[in-house]
Structures are given as C-alpha cells and as structure tokens.
C-alpha cells in the first residue's frame, strides 16, 4: 500500500534548531533502510510557485506566495503493509518536530495512493 504524506506548517519566527535537520535525516535513513520510504523531497516556499484555477469557464494563473494558507513544507511517499504503519512512520516524523522545536505547529496529511 502506498501513501503520500504532505506536511504543512506555519513556520515560527525562530529558526529551526540545529539538531532538527540531523534528526529528520536520521529518521529518513531509518525509514529508507526499512524499505518503507521510497521518495521524498522538501518544497520551496509558495513564493516560488504558482496556482492555476479553473472556475466558471475561466482559467487564472496566480503567482505565489499564497498567504491565505499554511505553507506546504515537504512530501514523502511510503510503501507499507497497513495504514497503521504509515501512521506510525508519520508520527515519528512529527514527534521529531514536537520534541526539538516546541514553537513549531504543523500537520501532516496521509493520503493513500490509488493502485490498480
């Protein structure tokens, strides 16, 4: 079963603590070594992106940033044997943030990829 995880957050004013990146990398290595994490990447702030909207027959292209929403931070693709496994890996990822960067608040969506 394949899941996409989308992390969104409001970045606090304080810079990320020194150990955060290290801890994230270590967890990523673990998840890769377990054969579960098969793809992931960080996302640039929405200022670097754009949004295309279709409504009422009109197509509009708007450049970022998108101030009305939280920023999307990163995505990850996991291949696991149950939804609970996906939730467990994602929880470990979120706990690293909680424990190392107390000011940080964010959420991660876990979506199952449709497979044929």
């Amino acid at each position, binding site marked *: 079963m394949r899941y996409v995880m989308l992390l969104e957050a409001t970045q606090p004013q304080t810079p990320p603590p020194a150990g955060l990146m290290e801890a994230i990398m270590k967890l990523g290595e673990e998840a*890769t*070594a*377990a*054969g*579960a994490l*098969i*793809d992931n990447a960080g996302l640039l702030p929405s200022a670097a992106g754009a949004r295309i909207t279709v409504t009422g027959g009109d197509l509009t292209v708007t450049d970022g940033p998108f101030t009305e929403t939280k920023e999307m931070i990163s995505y990850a*693709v996991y*291949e*696991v*044997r*149950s939804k*609970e*496994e996906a*939730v*467990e*890996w994602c*929880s*470990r990822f979120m*706990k690293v943030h909680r424990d190392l960067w107390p000011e940080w608040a964010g959420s991660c969506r876990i979506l199952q990829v449709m*497979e*044929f």
Partner: protein
Amino acid sequence: MSPNRRSDRPDVRRVVEAVYRIESARIIGALARLVRDVGVAEELAQDALVVALEQWPDRGVPDDPGPWLMATAKHRAIDYLRRQETYRRKLAVVGAEDGFSEETAIVDALDDHIGDDTLRLIFTACHPSLTTESQVALTLRMLGGLRTDEIARAFLTTQASVSQRILRAKKALRGVAFELPPASEAPARLSAVLGTVYLIFNEGYSATAGADWARPELAKEALRLGRVLCGLMPDAPEVHGLTALMELQASRIGARTDAEGRPVLLADQDRRRWDRLLIRRGLAALARAEELGTLGPYGLQAAIAAGHARARAFEDTDWSRIAALYRLLSHVAPSAVVELNRAVAVGMADGPAAGLELLDGLRLPGYPHLPAARGEMLERLGRTAEARAAFAEAARLTRNDAERAVFTRRASSA
C-alpha cells in the same frame, strides 16, 4: 511523557501489529546476538508483542512504541538469561560485574550493531541447513514480521504446515552460530539469501498455482526485503541487481491484469499504467549495480527488464539488445528457461523462424511456457494447426487458472 492521544484509533491491535512489523527484525536480531538462538529470540520478541497487545488497549499506545517494544523484549531476554545456567558466562562476555549494572551492561551491549544484527538474522534465516520452504517461512516471519496465518495464505497452504516448517527450522538452527558467514562462504550464502527473496517475489508476482495470477502483497514484501538488503549491503552489486529487477518487474503489476483479473501479456499492456516511481527506482538501483562491477545474473535480468521499461511502446523494444543480454545471462547462469527467453527475444529481433529454431532445441518437460512460446512463433509463421496444438499443450500444463484461460483462448483463436 503521556501516552499519545489517538482519538480516532479504534483498533489498537492493528497499531501493535504495525509497530511490531516495523521493529521485528531489529528486535529479533538484537536478542539473537545475546541469547545465541534465533528461535528463542523470535519467541521472546513474540512475548513482547503479547505484552503490548495486553497493555496498549488499556493504557494507550506509548509515546515511543518502537523503543517500548524493544525495551520490553530486552527485559524478556534478561529474564531468560537469568534462567539459563550460561548466564554467568554471558556476563563475562559483556564485561559486567553484578546486580543492576549487569542488566545495564547487557542492554548497552544490545544497543550496538543494529544493522549487523539484521544482516546476521537474514543470513541465519536463509542458512543452508534449512529447506527452501523453511527459509522462506522463517524469512517472512522474522524479517517481515508476518503472522503464520498470513504466510500460509500467501503460499496457499495451511497454518499448521507453516507452523511445522518454522518449528523445524528453529530446531535445525539451534546449534548454528548467530554470525555472518566467513569470507570463504560469503558468495554462496549471499546467493542463498537473494534466491530466497526472489523466490518470495516470484510466488507473488507469478503465482505458480491457484486462482490468482499474482499476489501483489507478497511480491511487495519481497521488494521491501530487497530494499532492506540494499541498505545493509550497499556495496554488493547483485543485491542492487536483484532489487532493481524486482522494482522494474513490480512496476508492471498494475498493467499485467485486466479489470477481470485476467493476465495481460507484455505486448498488450497499457504502458501508461506502469509505475513510474518504481521504474525510476529500478533504473537507479541498476545503475548502482553497474557502478559496483560486472553485472551478475540478477543485474543482467534487471538490465533486460530495464530494456522493456525504457521502451515507450512494445514496438520500440530493442530486441537485439535484449537477446544479447540473454546471451550473457546464459553464460553466467545457464538454464533452459533463460534459453527459452533468449529464443523469444531472438524471435522478435530476427524473426519467428530464428526463434523457433532455438526453441526446437530445448527440452523443458512439463513447463507450459515452452509450448506457449512455440505457439507464438508458429502462429506468426502461419502454421496455424501446429500453433493451436502448442497452445493447447500449454493450457494443459499450467497450474495457474488465469494463465490456462489465456492459453485456451489462443488455442482457439490462432
């Protein structure tokens, strides 16, 4: 730290199982190094699983469920060692003195070498003293954390027979040291490990018997094991070769059955349904294998699979290159099945007459794909009656229901 609030989490049992599956190999590996018996280590890990199943529903899932399971299992191991007369000797090994510090020393000793332990566990599960069936069952059980009933379902056998296999295997391993193979045996032992993983993959990818054409979950589990092996043996070319092969073959799983679950052959597959992420990973793993040295049997098969993955349409396939790769493969791993596949590739590259000539030199009694390939060549040569007879023979020989349906259809439509 307080237990997690997991509000919409009705079935804690499934959470326990998920955590156990993630952690089982690490836990069993760590315990096996200490108790020097993988069978005992696996039972101690199971004990920890039972404790979690008892406690988590009432007390909540611990904040760090993985380390919790590991710590619980370690305590079981310490209790076990206390009951063993060899306890004193073990303590000498870890250099501890007495009392509580003994426990600390054991626990500290357990904390090292996680990767090495998992590797030892894989080599032990695929030990040459075990039958192939036992190697498969033990690998799925200890490295995959699968339950006996899940293994039984995957191999269309009974739970009792899988339990028997596992029991026999644990018994056979009782005197076997929990060690990596010595350098002189390493190539043969590695080849046994890779063979077991690929056997599991194939049982899932092209079910040899039964109603399903494929059991994707089993193939995916083998692929996961391959990925684990890549992390444990990053410099072994064939490990990457095998994983590349499985990634590339798995990329086609979605396209190789139709809506009714009937097989769709390579030529007829909708390539837009191939899994691009798995193809990308497969090509990367193949590149890694090539970087590390000369391709072995798995690497060559991966290179062949890559030839298909790179072709945007069946007509774009570089059959000459694939035929050449099969020729190399038949040198490093000669077998009649490889010759059969080479004949098919030659038939595509140089025409059906050339392919048929190679096929006619082959003997593969009881193997349905030989008459099926002959049927294909004969049909393209316009020798309809012979083609029909060949497909009918293929249909008679296969033990897979879905495959039989395809051959039967070809026998009447050729």
